[in-house]
């Protein structure tokens, strides 16, 4: 915001300048009037009456000061960027010429009527998330039906952070080990609160409340032996979301160099990564699990593991602020994650670093899910060299992803929504399988 509303009592400013058309109109009108008067031709003289009157009234009544534009509160959501622009024009202003634009959308020009004060709403459709710039506003007042014009003003664009929107995910896999003594999931340890582990003869230390009287009556009608129900302990899952923020590429490979801007209705890889990570975080935090966030693109410490609604807000904010920052050094070791965590790696896998990290975690015994967030690439309109380059990149990527799958990493492709949901549901059922249970959760007797 470079300009605010004019303060009360501010000087009215310089009068607007007259255009060349007005000066010429006055000159031609006076010539016509003179010739008509001298030659006794009222028809010729009358031609100059209206232009002269219009020009002189525009000159005498030309406004002073300048048009003020101020950005009001913006209501930006994922999908639509919106901003309200307040305009104040001096008396006598016929119209305000506005030029509004963003680098991705280009500029739109309009001529609007401003009766002293007015608020107009500017919108633009965009699927992009994260730090975004709103609209640059250039404005100029026009008076006297276009015969006078005011100074040109400019408003710098406001910066906003567009939060990602999650997708619904019916089920998510669990890590092989649970942490803690509380949570929503059955742990592998015996304890309190979980599902049935077994029925066991009563031992010293067992509580009398654990005695299963039905089983005892069936197995020991004379009560020589009591039987107790032993249960599993509860635990919480620890999940680490590792987002590779080094790449932010769109579906059009010709924009990957960064020279051409990405279309605003094209979601980039980072938009998809934000959406995917938020979907996963929401799913785990909703059932009380712990979620942490790491960024492969920076050396800063990531978001520590946490749980609850506030942690979700922190995760969303952290994800929204991700963006490529310079040219980071290559990582030798993967970021530390706590033992027994389930690691999600969100990356385009256009280079080997994210895949190397995923394999390293897998070798350490962590459960790893690699989420490929490269958008569906549009190859239409590529020339032969570009097509060859994209083909080589594709071959390399496919090899990389195949190596990941061979190393025991679950590989998902996020743009394929149905496939990702299905794969995650299957992984979820596999992860909940316990010895003695089938895939459908039926206990084998």
């Amino acid at each position: 915001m470079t300009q605010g509303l004019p303060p009360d009592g501010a000087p009215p400013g310089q009068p607007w300048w007259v255009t060349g058309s007005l000066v010429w109109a006055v000159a031609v009108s006076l010539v016509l009037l003179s010739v008509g008067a001298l030659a006794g031709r009222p028809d010729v003289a009358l031609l100059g009456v209206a232009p002269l009157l219009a020009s002189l009234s525009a000159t005498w009544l030309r406004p002073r000061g300048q048009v003020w534009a101020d950005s009001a509160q913006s209501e930006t959501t994922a999908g639509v960027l919106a901003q309200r622009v307040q305009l104040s024009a001096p008396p006598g202003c016929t119209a305000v010429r506005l030029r509004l634009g963003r680098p991705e959308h280009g500029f739109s020009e309009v001529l609007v009527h401003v009766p002293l004060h007015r608020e107009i709403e500017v919108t633009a459709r965009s699927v992009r998330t994260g730090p975004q710039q709103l609209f640059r506003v250039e404005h100029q007042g026009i008076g006297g039906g276009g015969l006078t014009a005011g100074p040109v003003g400019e408003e710098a664009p406001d910066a906003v952070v567009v939060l990602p929107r999650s997708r619904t995910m019916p089920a998510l896999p669990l890590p092989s080990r649970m942490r803690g003594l509380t949570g929503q999931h059955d742990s592998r340890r015996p304890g309190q609160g979980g599902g049935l582990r077994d029925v066991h003869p009563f031992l010293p230390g067992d509580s009398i409340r654990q005695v299963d009287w039905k089983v005892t009556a069936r197995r020991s009608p004379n009560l020589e032996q009591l039987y107790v129900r032993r249960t599993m302990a509860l635990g919480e899952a620890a999940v680490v979301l590792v987002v590779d923020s080094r790449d932010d590429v769109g579906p059009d490979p010709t924009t990957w160099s960064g020279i051409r801007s990405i279309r605003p209705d094209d979601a980039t890889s980072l938009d998809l990564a934000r959406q995917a990570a938020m979907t996963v975080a929401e799913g785990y935090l909703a059932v009380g699990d712990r979620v942490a966030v790491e960024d492969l693109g920076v050396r800063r410490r990531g978001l520590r593991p946490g749980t609850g609604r506030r942690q979700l807000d922190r995760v969303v904010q952290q994800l929204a602020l991700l963006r490529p920052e310079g040219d980071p050094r290559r990582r030798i070791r993967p970021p530390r994650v706590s033992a027994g965590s389930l690691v999600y790696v969100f990356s385009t896998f256009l280079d080997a670093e994210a895949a190397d990290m995923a394999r390293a975690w897998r070798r350490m015994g962590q459960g790893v899910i690699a989420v490929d967030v490269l958008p569906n690439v549009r190859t239409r309109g590529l020339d032969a060299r570009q097509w060859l380059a994209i083909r080589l990149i594709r071959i390399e990527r496919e090899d990389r992803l195949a190596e990941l799958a061979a190393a025991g990493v679950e590989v998902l492709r996020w743009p394929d929504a149905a496939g990702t949901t299905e794969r995650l549901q299957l992984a979820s059922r596999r992860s909940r399988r316990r010895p003695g249970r089938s895939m459908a959760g039926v206990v084998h007797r």
Partner: protein
Amino acid sequence: MRLWALRNRLRELFGLPPVPPRPGSAVVPAAPRVEVAMAGAVPGAVVRLLPPVLVVAGAALSGATGFAWYLTALAAIAVTWWPRYPWAAIVVGFFGLWLFGRDDLLALDAVAGTVPGLWRMAALVLTVHMLLVGTALAAHVAWRSLVETGVLLRGARTVLATQAIAQSVLLLVAWLRAWQPVGQEWLRLVAVAAVVGVALLVVPREWLVRRPRRVPD
């Protein structure tokens, strides 16, 4: 596919939103644009195309013939593509020239006692005024921009106020012609004096004063 692209190109020229491609088509739809909420809008192309129409109308009303029509065509092109330049005022000057070269439009029909060219003159006065104002407005309008109807209505209100005076003067002249067909030389002298007076009174003083030379640093 080309037809779809051409159609959208034309729609864009007139400020209309693009139509989506047919289902199953492989074309990529146009990128979204910045949209401004306005209370009714006219495409900028319409505003830009109004002055050439008025040029042709003015030429017809002022009695252009032969070579004058070539000049009219050139003037129409000029006001369409370069509305910032003072072509409209120059064209009005040509209208006056062509009018001067023909019989007086406000001449009295001695038999009927009326002024037969009155309506034509009234239309010409209106056309010339609209041409100047329309060109001045078109100078601020890009081909792909949108013009709110409120702007046009306000411009029309200003034109009407000025036209009320101009058309009243026209009726006064016609009435004077009908009232006293001959012996109006004194009126001519009054008109010349009035023009000089108007020129001295209404033109801003700074336009008539030579600007002082800038002192070199």
